[in-house]
């Protein structure tokens, strides 16, 4: 019974933090563009409004897909150690997290393709190509850390960075942090790598047919994905804080970096993005890997 409560609590917390980050993110972008921007709780309002609206669906696959995508990401979140403790006592394996995240994207892709709108399918094909793009450097970074710590459990990696800031992985392996940062940018679908959302070209890509509560679910999925991805980076590179507050603060720092990059960069074409991801971050990660292996 306790486990169910913890799971529920963690999910709400993740959604809350995610939406909060999105709101603040939009505020920060507005500030960069010298304007006020919406109130920080705007994301909550949007989600509330979307869930109250009627919506259209094409077939049962859309409903199944959207539910599966949010479910998948929530399941991923439950495996990421947040400030030291995990929803359910189990091993927080990096490989499991990486594969579980795929459920989210696959569910969303399936729902969206079921709508039959070509814009959506083009968006999904770009998203999956992008996924292949950022997955490789991100895994190389993780591989480096796994080999250094001799374990693939996220908890142990974050515990290995306890103590002062000096033995954070961010400091010990700056190269892999940079590579992870770029890969994170692509993972979240932020500006330089958001060829899949691309409102001008393919009418917000996958979300073209999503209305009402489906769009709401998509918002929540994006929020939870922000929370999960930043949590992973924090655990990997910034030693995972002891209490929730510092953990969320660190997450926000990471998210701020991505928002800053997003505010100023134009959009890559999809093959430029994949070429970039396979040369720059991958190069850095491989360099770091070689350094680790030689040590």
């Amino acid at each position, binding site marked *: 019974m306790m486990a169910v409560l913890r799971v529920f609590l963690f999910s709400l917390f993740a959604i809350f933090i995610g939406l909060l980050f999105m709101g603040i993110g939009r505020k920060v972008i507005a500030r960069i563009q010298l304007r006020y921007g919406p109130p920080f709780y705007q994301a909550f309002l949007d989600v509330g409004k979307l869930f109250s609206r009627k919506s259209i669906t094409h077939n049962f696959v859309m409903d199944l897909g959207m539910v599966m995508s949010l*479910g998948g990401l929530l399941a991923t979140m*439950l495996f990421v150690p947040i400030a030291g403790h995990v929803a359910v006592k189990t091993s927080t394996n990096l490989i499991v997290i990486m594969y579980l995240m795929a459920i989210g994207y696959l569910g969303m892709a399936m729902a969206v393709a079921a709508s039959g709108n070509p814009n959506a399918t083009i968006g999904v094909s770009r998203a999956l*190509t992008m996924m292949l793009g950022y997955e490789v450097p991100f895994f190389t970074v993780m591989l480096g850390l796994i080999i250094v710590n001799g374990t693939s459990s996220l908890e142990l990696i974050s515990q290995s960075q306890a103590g002062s800031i000096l033995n954070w992985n961010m400091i010990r392996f700056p190269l892999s942090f940079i590579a992870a940062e770029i890969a994170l940018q692509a993972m979240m679908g932020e500006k330089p790598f958001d060829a899949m959302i691309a409102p001008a070209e393919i009418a917000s890509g996958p979300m073209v047919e999503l209305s009402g509560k489906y769009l709401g679910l998509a918002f929540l999925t994006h929020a939870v994905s922000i929370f999960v991805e930043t949590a992973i980076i924090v655990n990997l590179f910034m030693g995972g804080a002891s209490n929730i507050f510092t953990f969320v603060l660190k997450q926000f720092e990471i998210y701020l970096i991505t928002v800053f990059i997003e505010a100023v960069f134009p959009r890559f074409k999809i093959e430029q993005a994949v070429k970039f991801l396979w040369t720059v971050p991958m190069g850095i990660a491989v360099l770091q890997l070689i350094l680790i292996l030689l040590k």
Partner: protein
Amino acid sequence: MIELLLVPLITTLSIAFFIKYKRVTWTLFLASNGFILYKLYSIYGMWSLSYSFNTGYEILGAKFNLGVSNNPIGWYFAFFSALITLIISIFSIGFNKNSKSNVSVIWMLIIFSNLGIFFAKDWVTFFMMWELMGWTSFFAITNGKDKALDGAKYYLSLSLFGAALLLIAISLLGAYTGTFEILPSAFGLLQIINSSTKLGIVILLLFLTTFIIKSAIFPFYMWPQKVYAEGPEDYITFMSSVMIKYGIYPMAIFIVPVVGSVNLPRILNTGNVLQYVIGYLGAISAVLGTLLAIFQTDMKKLFAYSSVSNMGYILLGFSSMTIVGFEGSLFHVVNHMILKAAIFLTLAAVVFRTGESEMHKLGGLVYRMPLTFMTFLLGIIAAAGIPPLNGFGSKWMIIQALMSKKMVVFAIAMIFASTGAFMYLFRALASIFLGQLPDRYKEVKEVPLTMAVPMFIMMVIMLLVGVVPGVVMKPLTTALKAVGYNVDIASWTVLEGSLKNATIDLKIVFYMFVAGVIISGLMYFFGNKSETVPQEDNYTAGEYPEEWGVDADRFNYSYSFYQPFKEMFDPLLESISIDDLFASVGRNFEYLSTTIQGLFKRGEGAVLLFSIGVLLLILGGLII
């Protein structure tokens, strides 16, 4: 033990007798598969069971007798392939209702050879069953259709070439170690490699090439796509899930133990040279299989390349030479068998109903065939290796093994291939089932009951093995322990990795997934109600596509699905094309053949050649 081999033979003869009555033949086929599965189940654990038939043929000084023995790993492979074959045979009763030529006779013979291969005691019996399976699958693929001939010819020449190499390898090994038994010959090969390395390596490579040809690994990865597109769909399901494992089985019992324990120069002290050879073959076929699968337009060819990349994973698992890697690969053998059978059953159902196998001509079948869609969806999720389903466990163990041995390049290749898998698997899902339903398929019905039941069973198995891997891991670990590896029996749901506290409990992973889905389901019901809308009502910037003559086919985005991605890889794929190499070899032979025919057609040079022959003899006799 003997009735295990006799029953398929008797059924083959009886099916051949009743070839005219389709229903009788296929029920006989199902009955015999059922019996085989029951028999295999009953001999689990009796590892000393064996039977040998004295052929009275003298070789190497002793009377040779065909031997069949119940070895643990052989049992493991045979049991699960018998399970899958039983399910497929239920499927093929309905599938073959109106097909003209009946493939069950040849198929039964292949099942006989399948059991023979897995239980062969010595190399000659293994070779005999191997060769029998070679030519019978040729007839099964063509199955009376002429368009299937050149694909089948390509496959036949490759498998005969492989068998020739195997014969040379067996004879060399027999000549030098004096025995044909599989186990002692492995130790014999070890001594040969340790003593005269060059000869030992040649023998090992000969063995390896044959098994690589049969399991469609890197240099010989071209034949599945030629063969799977042509053959009868239900047989191809069997071929793509079970027959592609024939190469893996001998690797598991012979190549891996030898390569693991031979002392050859080691690289970066992680593995010796041969391990890296196997590893790179696996890595290249994994990456190449995924890339080529992404660019295919025919659904069966797409999944042919997916089998190639899955075989690559298995080889990667072998190359790590750790217990976890070895277990992971053998677990992946069964996983791949299950998910590939599920996927190909759905493809067969789609072809059975629509008769079309080009993906851009299909679309929107989810409206008409929901059960097939669900099986395909679960198959896709399993093939992509996503946790709740069975594909994940084995991939996870293989990656763990690779990481624990610091084989960095192979780990990255593995991840590249399995992420790439999402791309082509989703492409297949989207093009076949999702998107707009063209008018010609408007009245396509769901598959009949006899085909729906096996699909449902496959779904249950995938979920079961995904959540409770013990179902496969327990027999696997007991088999490995019986063979002699120091491995502890796997528990029902926990999988051990080789890194520090790398154990995952798939049960909890499943619960978490269910919890997540429940929470998002609540969110979903929390929202306002939604009304379904016909498929034409899409946002197209206010336009009415039908007015401009854009029907469902052209409206579906599925022709060149990953066009930008393809342009990146086109220069690379054009430059290395193994297929042209084999095609040019074929052309040279045919050119030579026409010149020889010309020589013999004229025939008046007979006396001239006669005297040249005499000169040659004189040259040989008197001078050299």
